[in-house]
């Protein structure tokens, strides 16, 4: 597989995106490309335009200038920040995983296994905990056999070990499925080392590169300070353990 990742075959490419909400310029000349199989993390302070960029990349909104190109017939799995489901809508987890397309029961079982949500099938989606909901959303995204998985702040509501476990899980999924991962985080602590590439956004792209390059970059330090050394250590510490345990709030 890795040998087939040719250059110039980006899954998704954004050229010079700009976006304003009224007077406020949210994104200014943002360009990026996502290559097959890589894990890219978008970091930036609150209000730096991260979510707007995700909305542009997934086609929710259109840019004022610039454009987004997808590989033809790109299979895109999208995990939104959160899903607030109106309790007036009855919906079991299994039914939700079959939306909008019916999936083969075997595929459902596999996705449930990969995300650790076996046995939740008959539960109502509106009654899931934050962590369970996140896993169900991930399972649903995996059912598209994605070439690219886009996650918007996937670990909101998880504690730090839970977060670390989630990222390691993503890394393993990437290795197993060969999909690229593009995710947003406002929390740099655990996310950095799980990424092949980090893009630091503050309305424009401040800096990008491997996690270590970015964490040393002056632009990054200007935004986030110096306090990430301990967090990287925490990640490495977690890495020594077995990751079979999931931090599930069942």
């Amino acid at each position, binding site marked *: 597989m890795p040998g087939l990742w040719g250059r110039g075959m980006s899954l998704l490419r954004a050229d010079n995106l700009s976006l304003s909400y009224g007077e406020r310029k949210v994104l200014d000349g943002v360009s990026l490309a996502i290559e097959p199989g890589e894990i890219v993390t978008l970091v930036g302070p609150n209000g730096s335009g991260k979510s707007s960029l995700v909305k542009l990349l997934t086609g*929710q909104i259109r840019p004022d200038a610039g454009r987004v190109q997808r590989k033809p017939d790109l299979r895109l799995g999208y995990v939104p920040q959160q899903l607030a489901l109106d309790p007036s809508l009855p919906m079991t987890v299994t039914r939700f995983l079959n939306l909008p*397309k019916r999936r083969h029961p075997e595929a459902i079982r596999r996705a449930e296994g990969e995300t650790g949500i076996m046995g939740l099938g008959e539960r109502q989606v509106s009654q899931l905990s934050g962590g369970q909901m996140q896993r169900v959303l991930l399972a649903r995204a995996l059912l598209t056999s994605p070439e690219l998985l886009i996650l918007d702040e996937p670990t909101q509501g998880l504690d730090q070990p839970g977060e670390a476990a989630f990222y390691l899980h993503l890394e393993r999924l990437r290795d197993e499925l060969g999909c690229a991962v593009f995710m947003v985080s406002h929390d740099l602590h655990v996310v950095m080392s799980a990424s092949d590439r980090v893009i630091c956004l503050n309305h424009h792209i401040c800096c990008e590169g491997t996690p270590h390059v970015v964490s040393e970059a002056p632009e990054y330090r200007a935004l986030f300070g110096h306090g990430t050394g301990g967090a990287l250590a925490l990640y490495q510490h977690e890495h020594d353990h077995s990751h079979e345990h999931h931090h599930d709030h069942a």
Partner: protein
Amino acid sequence: MSIITTMLDDFLVRAALAGVGLAVAAGPLGSFVVWRRMAYFGDATAHAAILGVALALLFSVPVTAGTLVVALAMALAVSALATRGHAMDATLGVLSHSALALGLVAISFVPGVRVDLSAFLFGDILSVTRADLGVIWGGAVLVAALLVWRWSALLTATMSEELAVASGIDPRRERLVLTLALAVVVAVALKVVGALLIAAMLIIPAAAARGLSRTPEAMAGWAVVIGIGAALGGLALSYGADTPTGPSIVVVAAAAFLGVVSVARR
């Protein structure tokens, strides 16, 4: 064949068939109205039907056509406002009641024949003709087919517009489908329960069905069953106790809602 023709001679049979037809369309559509919190939206569209009646009578076109056009115009207007992110509560109130009042005023200008206003406000299910039945069932089948066809996309867009877009579904198109369906149901329901109670037939059976359902499909199905039960029960109540039929149907639906809620609470 002759048995059916004979049965259709009976006004009670025609009334029952009209009620069942409405329930078939109102069950699934009403479920979406509940899920998407469009209750007031339904009200505004239904109230606009009175204006449609007035215009139809003034211009001597069929009442169903007039109702359909004006209800559709109202539904599209409300839908457009909603997409632009207006604060909807007051806007819907203004539109809904203005349309109703304007319709009532306009009807008073209809020359010649005295118009039986209460028939349009509260329905006149006992006077349903065979032609009315054709319109009611035609509309009901159209709406049900439309909703079945778009079901998965509608559900996905209802759960999350974000997820819908990521799956290649255009939420605006799905909203338009619901808007069209709502206008058709309003036009069809006018004869059965009247403009003031159309929204009730959308919301009450669906809300009652919620307590019995674990999936959206089950809820839509139960809403149809409860709607049919309300139509038949309301007819029986009206026949037995000489009460107005449209309101009797809604009263039975409300009783079903109360029953389900009190059982589900236990």
